[in-house]
């Protein structure tokens, strides 16, 4: 078998951070989340992801994937960045940097948004929640330092305080059709009434936490942020709440399942579908780009909306048990027309699926293309995203 370093790189698209010319290798001093002890006790296979030592899997990626689709899974996502914005200009500042118009957001609303540069290139995709006293941004682990530097650069002229709370807090995602019912049996305030992309603050035994009805799996569920010290207790409590063992409704799931779940749900992953060389319009995220305000990148994006983009993100249904990998070429009539960004053997569909950027003329659903798997052409058909949509 070949070197696994290469496989790892394919796995998560090379998580190396460039910060003002300093090359920070992530192989040294890996960060640990407050749930590290839990992962180790559960026998998780740990990998290094964006500088963090994270669980790739506990029992198996496919088993964890399937459990999430039918029951409930808990994912440690504490590696993601959590940044708090306060001060009189916080909203104005965020509106200058984000593609969504957050001035219209009510308290308790969470918005998916992009952060773009002046050319419309995506610096990150984030979720910003408007809470009573501040705005809270959740960003990708691999982009956190880059974003903090970007915010610092654009802060002059705004009365805003930016506080990186990543190291003081933990974040877990609870995902699956049984999550809401399960939470409502234990939480003081029901979350069933919380609308999708809305958030609330709660207390449980004097411990405050934030709950957002959101996720990255295509299932119903929540993402919970709490203090470091409460996290380990909370996760143990959750897993015990309906009996322990493999029959338990709630099972831990790792980054491996998180990736296959989000791919079936057609959700982009930074470093794969999104990057600084890609704009949100090509990525199919026009809906997350406000047309009624100016922000960094808005001019370029408005033109792309008006004139169309030369390439588009599409789904591919691949007619082979083989799995293409990132950057493999998409062909039409023997000519290159695009590139694969992500692919997997879909556990839910029982077939190979991929996302790819293709020239816009080949982006219509039903278009026949091929994927060049190192010389072997795999027949594929363009399809609409997502691949999987939950019932209801």
């Amino acid at each position: 078998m070949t070197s696994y370093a290469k496989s790892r790189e394919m796995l998560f698209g090379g998580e190396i951070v460039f910060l003002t010319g300093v090359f920070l290798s992530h192989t040294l001093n890996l960060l640990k989340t407050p749930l590290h002890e839990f992962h180790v006790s559960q026998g998780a296979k740990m990998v290094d992801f964006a500088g963090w030592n994270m669980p790739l899997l506990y029992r198996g990626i496919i088993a964890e994937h399937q459990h999430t689709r039918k029951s409930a899974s808990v994912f440690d996502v504490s590696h993601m960045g959590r940044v708090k914005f306060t001060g009189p200009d916080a909203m104005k500042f965020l509106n200058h940097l984000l593609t969504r118009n957050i001035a219209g957001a009510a308290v308790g609303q969470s918005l998916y948004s992009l952060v773009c540069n002046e050319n419309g290139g995506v610096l990150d995709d984030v979720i910003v929640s408007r809470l009573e006293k501040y705005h809270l941004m959740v960003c990708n682990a691999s982009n956190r330092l880059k974003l903090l530097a970007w915010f610092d650069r654009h802060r002059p002229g705004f009365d805003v305080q930016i506080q990186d709370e990543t190291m003081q807090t933990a974040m877990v995602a609870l995902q699956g059709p049984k999550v809401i019912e399960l939470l409502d049996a234990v939480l003081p305030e029901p979350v069933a009434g919380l609308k999708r992309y809305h958030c609330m603050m709660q207390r449980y035994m004097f411990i405050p936490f934030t709950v957002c009805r959101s996720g990255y799996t295509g299932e119903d569920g929540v993402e919970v942020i709490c203090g470091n010290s409460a996290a380990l207790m909370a996760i143990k409590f959750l897993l015990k709440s309906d009996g322990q063992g493999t029959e338990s409704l709630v099972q831990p799931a790792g980054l491996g399942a998180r990736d296959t779940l989000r791919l079936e749900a057609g959700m982009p992953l930074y470093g794969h579908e999104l990057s600084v060389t890609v704009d949100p319009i090509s990525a199919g995220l026009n809906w997350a780009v406000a047309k009624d305000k100016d922000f960094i990148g808005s001019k370029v994006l408005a033109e792309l909306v008006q004139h169309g983009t030369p390439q588009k993100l599409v789904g591919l249904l691949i007619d082979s048990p083989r799995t293409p990998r990132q950057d493999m070429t998409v062909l039409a009539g023997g000519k290159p027309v695009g590139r694969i960004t992500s692919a997997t053997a879909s556990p839910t569909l029982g077939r190979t699926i991929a996302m790819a950027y293709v020239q816009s003329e080949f982006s219509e659903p039903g278009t026949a293309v091929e994927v060049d798997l190192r010389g072997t052409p795999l027949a594929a058909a363009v399809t609409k995203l997502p691949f999987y949509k939950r019932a209801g």
Partner: protein
Amino acid sequence: MASPTDRFYTETHEWIKLQGERVLLGITRFAVDELTDVTFVELPAIGKTLTVGKAFGEIESVKATSELYAPVDGAVVEVNEAVKNDPSTINQDPYETGWLVAVKTGPVDTSKLMSAAQYDAKFNIH
């Protein structure tokens, strides 16, 4: 878990088990754990010649694709259809039901291969 002591190992995580004039060939538990769930395996047809150190097949998982390298010279005399039909057999049991191919060889020079103890020491397996 320690690797089985009745076979030899390569640095690229293949194992061979000597069976008279032929060897059974597979990949190690360590390799399988690195790959995660195996979804596809491409193996050579019966009669195909293997050359030491050269790629003879590919294995794909939910997370990665890897090439398989021949630990011995020889000709393929049997292919494990069970792993082709159900690649998860390799995850379940890489040393017994999850073998890949049987190869007819001359006398095998095992001096270039590792014992279980050497392999486990090299990759910190216990």
